[in-house]
């Protein structure tokens, strides 16, 4: 174990905590920007520090392809390679292989030269084949069949050197039904043992297990108990953020957070939209990651308290207001919507400035969640700004009910 998790404040199930990792002491709840290939698209490490980024997520699959984990190791690990002094988390590499096809559709038509290589390699992937040994896939480089085993995933992550590493799990999308889900859940538990055995740096890197089980509460329960038995430094709730309806989504999160140990961090993978993060935090989760803020920036969409602002829209051509008058970031302090409008989708600078703002927004959201969890007021403020007419979605009301947070002041009905 190479971390310390200390709860500093609570509001019912929600917690504000300090998560001390080898490279940085973080405050939770926190959002982790995704730096797929050893960089957050268009931002320098200085800028990331300045906006308060605490942990960056790196994709094992991409880094293992280029520049390879051996090279990163030889040059002193990913922290040194990209010159990031704070914390890093790497995923296991499994998810990219299985689920890239969805991402391809999302990012597909609008690619710029900076997206091109990502699309190119993804489009060469065939559906992966998962066996007890590991995940078999076709290499995008030369088409040869390759096998990613739990052992190999951990070895690669050991070489990359992140503060938190993820066990290789057998992940299935929640939209699938049938015995495959149960098979995947039990296999995830068996693979966790292999990951633990293969982990060579437990005093420098924290291995998190991932709870699977689809939308089935019985399976989820078995998985949680199995992982808790292994006494890991932290736990992730996986297999969500893949197209399931919101009502099922929050119930799985609620069930898992209720069953996972109080004194260890809980990471909901692939989440997400600001509203989802607020709800999950109310239910007791601590860590989140998503490509959404940076990806949507590249399509000209800004995150604002009311939801989103589409800067590409013609209405923005002569709008001299800032993107978000309540935001303290460099972009909102200096630029008008009109100016950003003329940049987006045409100039690299547009992507950069919007990514900067969107990440600032997500990190500020994290800071607000942390500092106001004790008060409990934040949830209401957030919902009132996003739903000024009081039309809070039903799934959110149900979730807040379970979380024990009174949002009647935000709802019209």
């Amino acid at each position, binding site marked *: 174990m190479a971390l310390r998790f200390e709860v500093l404040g609570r509001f019912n199930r929600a917690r504000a905590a300090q998560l001390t990792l080898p490279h940085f002491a973080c405050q939770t709840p926190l959002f982790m920007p995704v730096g797929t*290939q*050893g*960089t957050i*698209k*268009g*931002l*320098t*490490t*200085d*800028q990331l520090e*300045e906006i308060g980024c605490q942990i960056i997520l790196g994709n094992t699959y*991409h880094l293992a392809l*280029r*520049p390879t984990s051996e*090279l990163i190791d*030889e*040059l*002193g690990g990913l922290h040194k*390679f*990209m*010159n990031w002094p704070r914390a890093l988390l790497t995923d296991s590499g499994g998810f990219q292989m299985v689920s890239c096809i969805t991402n391809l559709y999302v990012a597909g038509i609008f690619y710029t*030269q*900076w*997206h*091109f*290589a*990502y699309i190119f390699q993804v489009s060469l992937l065939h559906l992966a084949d998962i066996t007890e040994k590991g995940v078999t896939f076709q290499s995008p480089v030369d088409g040869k069949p390759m096998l990613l085993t739990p052992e190999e995933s951990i070895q690669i992550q050991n070489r990359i050197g992140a503060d938190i590493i993820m066990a290789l799990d057998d992940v299935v999308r929640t939209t699938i039904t049938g015995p495959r889900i149960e098979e995947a859940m039990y296999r995830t538990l068996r693979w966790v043992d292999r990951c633990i055995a293969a982990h060579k740096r437990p005093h420098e890197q924290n291995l998190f297990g991932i709870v699977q089980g689809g939308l089935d509460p019985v399976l989820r329960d078995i998985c949680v108990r199995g992982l808790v038995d292994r006494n890991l430094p932290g736990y992730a709730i996986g297999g969500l953020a893949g197209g399931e309806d919101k009502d099922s989504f929050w119930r799985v999160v609620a069930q898992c957070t209720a069953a996972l140990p109080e004194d260890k961090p809980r990471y909901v993978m692939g989440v997400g939209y600001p509203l989802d993060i607020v709800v999950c935090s109310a239910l007791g989760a601590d860590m989140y990651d998503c490509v959404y803020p940076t990806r949507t920036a590249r399509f000209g969409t800004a995150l604002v308290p009311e939801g989103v602002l589409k800067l590409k829209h013609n209405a923005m*051509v*002569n709008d*001299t207001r800032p993107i978000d008058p309540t935001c303290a970031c*460099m972009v909102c*302090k*200096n*630029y*008008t919507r*009109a*100016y950003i*409008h*003329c*940049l987006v989708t*045409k*100039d*690299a*600078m547009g*992507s*950069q*400035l919007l990514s*900067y703002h969107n990440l600032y927004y997500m990190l500020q959201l994290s800071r607000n969640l942390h500092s106001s969890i004790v008060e409990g007021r934040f949830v209401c403020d957030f919902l009132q700004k996003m739903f000024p007419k009081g039309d809070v979605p039903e799934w959110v009301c149900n979730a807040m009910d379970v979380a024990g947070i009174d949002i009647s002041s935000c709802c019209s009905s």
Partner: protein
Amino acid sequence: MKFAVKALSSGKARAGVVHLGSCPSSIETPCLLLSTRKGLPIFISPDLLSSLPSPDSNLLQFSPLHFSEGPSPKTISSIGGLHQMVGLHEYGFAAVARDSIQCLPECGSTNKTGASFETPCGRRLIKPVEYMEMITSMKPNLWATLADEVPAWANNKRNKTSVDRTVKWLDECIARSPAGGAVFGSIVGGSNIEERKRCAQEIIYAGYWIGGFGLGESMEERPSLLNAVTDNLPKDWPRMICGLGLPEEVLQGVAAGVDLFDSAYIYHLTIGGFALTFPLDRTEKIDYNYQLSDQGSDRTKINLRATVYRKDATPIVEDCCCYTCQNHTKAYINHLLNVHEMLAQILLEIHNTHHYLGFFRSIREAIKEGCFEQFQKKFVQSRREHLAADVVSV
């Protein structure tokens, strides 16, 4: 705007000082105008701009044509002008219709009503009235009048027409000139020395913008064309030029008495994945770590896509104090280029700009020490020697 010549070397090369209202410090010349797209550098975001040497890096160039698809001049005025719109209040902006990277003069389509340019939004014809509307709303520190530029091979008739039109448009622009903002009269004339002289003599204003270069004239014919213009300009006023981007071309401009330069060189290096490495100090230096296997490199620059840099954990230039060299290695930039990440261009533009500004600094030092001619000779010669050595060794 105030300008003064402080030193001369070899007759015509001059070191001077320009002071602009919005910039807190004076800027020494000869100096480089940083290229921008819509007022901001192409890759370096505004908060990273301050990491470049100041005040050298405080002069930016843009073309009003960058904004031909919005925001409207009315909106720009209501925001308060370009400085306000791009949040760079302590920088100086120079407006020129031509931008050597993406607003290239298209003399075939230029006619008596306006000048034509190839832009990312297609071909645009801009009339003096429209041009001045944009200048008035943007309030740059200095601006060049609209010109009809022709390449070196234009015939005499076309040359003459370009001079006539440029002079006519000069009057139209000045008639609509906003208060504030220094006017640089545009001088054209193609490769016809007589026309160049005529143009230079007709225009007398606060500064001069020399057009029609970097459009196909050869290195050999350029000095005489340049001199034909500068010999006929009053010595006390600043001269700006577009299209002389390469170091040797800049040196030719300086030798003829030009003070302000734009350059597309940095942009092309950056998008090509190249980083400048030529030595900036003027003492003879023994060649360091030069990799012969490097594809496309010579002793002036390195190609960071080359596999030889995959594991190179050293900065681009060992004692460079730019943000890129202080924080990142060649190996990391090599990786970023290979995975097509935008950060590669950001880091390269920072380093290349920093390095090129250093080149301009050495030019100024050489002029102040009275040895510009030797500096130019030595620079050009050593680059030729390196190229010759490479040819022999391959």
